[in-house]
């Protein structure tokens, strides 16, 4: 699911410092925020929208839930959002214990919710809406265009988006899928969505070492008619070390750079050595 302007957003943790900062950014960008959650401030108003005790209390008033919730409290909030009928749950939180993450995914499956993340920076649809913690409002980085960007990393997705704009291009959608090992929307899922999206003419995948997200996406890319290019971070990273993201680790030879590059290239995806090559590849 690609967020649209008409989608109503519920911000869990709206009254916190980050919740407040980013909600203001989303609203001024044009996103439709209809409410927030904080059990201790239920019944009050914050940033012009009602604060609820739980997402369930707000059931029916939102389509997308976005979590600004600390890791140890994330499970409860995530399950609450799923059970309250969120179509999309954008889980920004990093360092959620993996068993809690699995419980959230189970709740999502049971309730028909699509989780994006955990550990995603969110989704930007330039000129329309954004949900998360990406600087959508910075027009040197995000501009409306035809390129779909998929990234496991918020900072790298931002860099690739910047590279596009520096070269006169723009983005249809920037989809952050998250840096955790167990994420609800994979690179392949996002690729499939952007393949079906009319506003997207070509796609840039920002991958990284660890896991099999790029290999799985390559399988799908093989049958696509839209051009797909990629950059994979971590070529210079040593094996056996977690490179910041819990999912970015090469162990026992699996998830390493050469196998990802090989899988993508075999599927007809051009792979850039540095992000700045992406725009020229999209032109060519």
């Amino acid at each position, binding site marked *: 699911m690609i967020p649209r302007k008409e989608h109503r957003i519920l911000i869990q943790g709206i009254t916190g410092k980050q919740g407040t900062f980013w909600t203001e950014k989303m609203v001024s960008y044009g996103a439709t925020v209809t409410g927030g959650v904080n059990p201790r401030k239920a019944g009050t108003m914050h940033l012009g929208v009602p604060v609820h005790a739980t997402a369930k209390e707000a059931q029916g008033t939102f389509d997308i839930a976005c979590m600004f919730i600390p890791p*140890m409290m994330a499970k409860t909030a995530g399950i609450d959002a799923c059970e309250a009928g969120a179509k999309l749950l954008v889980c920004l939180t990093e360092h*959620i214990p993996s068993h809690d993450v699995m419980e959230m995914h189970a709740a999502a499956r049971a309730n028909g919710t699509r989780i994006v993340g955990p550990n995603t920076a969110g989704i930007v649809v330039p000129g329309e809406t954004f949900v998360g913690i990406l600087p959508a409002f910075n027009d040197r980085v995000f501009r409306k265009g035809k390129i779909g960007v998929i990234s496991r990393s918020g900072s*790298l997705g931002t860099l690739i988006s910047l590279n596009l704009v520096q070269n006169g291009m723009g983005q249809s959608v920037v989809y952050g899928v998250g840096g955790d090992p167990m994420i609800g929307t994979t690179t392949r899922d996002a690729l499939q969505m952007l393949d079906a999206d009319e506003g997207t003419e070509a796609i840039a995948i920002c991958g990284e070492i660890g896991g099999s997200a790029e290999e799985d996406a390559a399988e799908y890319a093989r049958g696509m008619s839209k051009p797909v290019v990629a950059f994979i971070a971590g070529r210079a990273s040593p094996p056996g070390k977690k490179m*910041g993201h819990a999912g*970015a680790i090469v162990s026992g030879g699996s998830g390493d750079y050469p196998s990802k590059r090989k899988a993508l290239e075999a599927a007809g995806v051009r792979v850039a050595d540095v992000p*700045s090559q992406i725009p020229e590849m999209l032109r060519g």
Partner: protein
Amino acid sequence: MNFEEFAAKPLLAAGGIAVPPSQVVVSAEEAGVAAETIGPCVVKAQVPTGKRGKAGGIKLAATPDEARTHADTILGMKIGGYTVEKLLVEGQVPIARELYAAVLNDPVTCGPVVLFSPLGGMDVEEAAEQDPNAMRRMPVDIREGLDAGKAAGLLSGLNLDGQHDAIAEVLVKLYDVYRANDAELLEINPLVLTGDGGVLALDCKFTLCDSAVPRREELSAQGTPDKATDLEAEAAEAGLKYIELGGSVGVLANGAGLTMTTMDAITHYGGQPSNFLEIGGEAYTKSEIALKILLKNPNIKSLLVNFCGAFARTDVMAGGVVEAWKALNPDIPVVFTIHGTGEDEAVALVKSELGIEPFDLMDDAVKAAVEAAR
């Protein structure tokens, strides 16, 4: 966080899975004393790596004298880069069959998965690669858990010397131990049938989910900390992920993806990164301490600061860098490239406080940093 055998097995025992009697010792003398109580035993090197048997780190001892001799040989041995400082002296068990059982997080189903193989022992991974049927796997719905019926289903049709029920019971307990301890991986290899109805765990590997450490303080104290250099340990203490890489171009960036990319670009343009150090996410307010740690590395010849702020506000990060730079006044060149959240303030700050003009393009900044390090 990984747990060695001596720290992992007590979790199995607490969960009702049978393990042989054992004692942890640190000297040949202690090994002998332990063997007197335990009887015929196995002397096992305790190191956080596999293939201990093949390396000569596991030996059978019939008598206390033999246990002493083996302990003397194994202590101080190097296995997989680790020096053996600790041994487990464990009672010998009759082995009729060796099996394999594990529960782990599965990134494909985003839930737990139970693995079982009738071919346990040292080469189970290789055996499973050659014959995929040798490894059975069953995803578990985390809300329902694993019961004896489901566990039996995983074992059905296998020749297990009539011990299906007892093994199914072990699988259920294994799953419960996995759940009760925030495990990423809990593995028994081998799980042995003794031939007289006994089912015992002879070895155990346990990986605690790193993100669960804050709520498992007591448990995590039993784990093996990652090997770290002094600076890596200092950074970890400050809540930062820092990895020394041996090159000469220092890297300070926000976010794991951008930091790895910065390292890749340095390599692409002919340089060598000295480190991975990211201050993204919640760590974005720690740029000052991060830079101080980074500059302690004597190999650094230039510093590349690459910020592409999303959640991590570049104005806050640049403020920390400027503070640290002015305080330490290091004698190396520094180049900046700054974009994203707060970039106007950040760029203005770097210009006014340090008199440095950040590069617009990351590639130009990387090339300059690589050149400066030559």
